[in-house]
């Protein structure tokens, strides 16, 4: 496979065309906007938590195929996970898209490994994840306040 084929794998193109969980969630526990100042892409993450478990997650926004597919795959992976599990998956993902290491049990995420060869696209792939991690942190902070 050429580098470009590794970047735009079939699964990525499919998620770009028909993103999963591309929806607003009413009464979300947290709604957070993420922004990539480099390219102007914008994403909104909606999160619902039940006892520390992500019970629903959705996203909306404008972005390239990589950012959209990454967000879409992310939502499918994080639904049903605890905050700690989500953070662990994020760490693996982060490592994979920055240095190409494919960790254990990355599952479908592997299709995004090709991104690490394109430094200018790493930010696209990571936008949804950063926003989600920040959203989880915000919920944590609010929990602390309560």
């Amino acid at each position, binding site marked *: 496979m*050429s580098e*470009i084929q590794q*970047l*735009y794998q079939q699964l990525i*193109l499919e998620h*770009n*065309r028909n993103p999963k969980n591309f929806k607003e969630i009413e009464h979300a526990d947290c709604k957070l906007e993420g922004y990539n100042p*480099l*390219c*102007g*892409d*914008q994403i909104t993450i909606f999160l619902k938590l039940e006892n520390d478990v992500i019970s629903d997650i959705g996203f909306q926004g*404008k*972005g*390239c*195929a*990589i950012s959209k597919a990454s967000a879409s795959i992310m939502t499918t992976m994080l639904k049903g996970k605890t905050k700690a599990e989500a953070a662990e998956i994020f760490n693996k993902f982060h490592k994979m898209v920055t240095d190409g290491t494919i960790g254990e049990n990355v599952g479908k995420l592997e299709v995004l490994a090709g991104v690490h060869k*394109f430094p200018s*696209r790493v930010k*696209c792939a990571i936008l949804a994840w950063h926003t989600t991690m920040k959203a989880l942190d915000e919920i944590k902070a609010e929990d602390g306040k309560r």
Partner: protein
Amino acid sequence: MMNFDVEKIRAQFPMFAGKDKPLIYLDNAATTQKPQSVIDAVTKYYSEYSANVHRGIYAISEKATHEYESARTRIAKFIGADFEKSIVFTRGATEAINLVAYAWARHNLNPGDEILITEMEHHSNIIPWQLAARDTGATLRYIPIDETGTLVESEKYINPKTKLFAITQQSNVFGTTNPVKELTEIAHSFGAKVLVDAAQAMPHLMVDVVDLDCDFLAISGHKMLAPTGVGALFAKQEILEEMEPFLGGGEMIEQVTMETATWSEIPQKFEAGTPNIAQAIGFGAAVDFINQIGIEKIKDYEGEMTRYAIAKLSEISGMQIYGDLFCRGPVISFNVSGVHSHDLAQLLDMENIAIRAGHHCAQPIMRKLDVPATARASFYLYNTKAEVDALCEAIEKAKWFLATD
């Protein structure tokens, strides 16, 4: 096109030579490729007379000073300035604008005064004025643009409170060429000073500071075949002489005591420290290169290619071109429905075609167009219609790849 031998021109650019799949470089609004003569001028300085300027009492320093000053003179002549000392070398257009914002605006603006710019400015002609307004209490105002990238009712925004009017001569997003001469005249009638950002205009059309009558002109070298790291500020002599220094250091002083100092004559007063000598000399060579071809011929050639490109691109289904379709410089911003500009730029890169994707350092424009980003193809004197055809083909291929239809 008569008298315009593009193949002969291309042959002078090493970046286009000897590749199986030649580079199709369509990001000239970001920076341009360099001809051999510019590269040679830089190399020659480093290998034959590398020395500091305005200092050494020895032959190679004299030679370096002579070449550096000669570049200044040629740049002055290129923009019709009758006094070469009104050219200050800077790092680029950005530094030229900041120089005015620090050395002029901060000493001449007061609360209640207005700085007027336009909605189509590059960030480098926005942020320095936001900062200057913040520091002086002046108000920053914008002349709006419409969806075609044209200024709307500019005259209405120029008034007796306007102390500085800063405007781009050509938009780096829409390619719009603004009527800067007419607007300068109106601004002057209210006593305002006028800064023209010529970063995008100067590579493509004749810029004459006497005709424009602007007070300041910001110039970018690397967008007109010169090395990176060099640009210039033109300012009217009397304004430069009255202006406070910008950076302090060596080269810009006359006498220094422990407490104080007096300043060098212009333009050295504004060139503290060792300048970008090689780059400035390269800038002189770039001006020579353009002069040998003739800026008017370049303009005509690019005009024809731009019209051709707009016609060809318009045939692509789902194509949206931003800006006025007829009256513009060689810069085309567009989007193809269903294809994000990042993906497009990435896929075009596979065909060795370089275009820009993003907000082009002009976020207020993106907001106006209500798009996160656009793709942008921008041409220069070495591009060809065959490259435009290749661009269009590659766009069709990218559409097919992402299967958006």
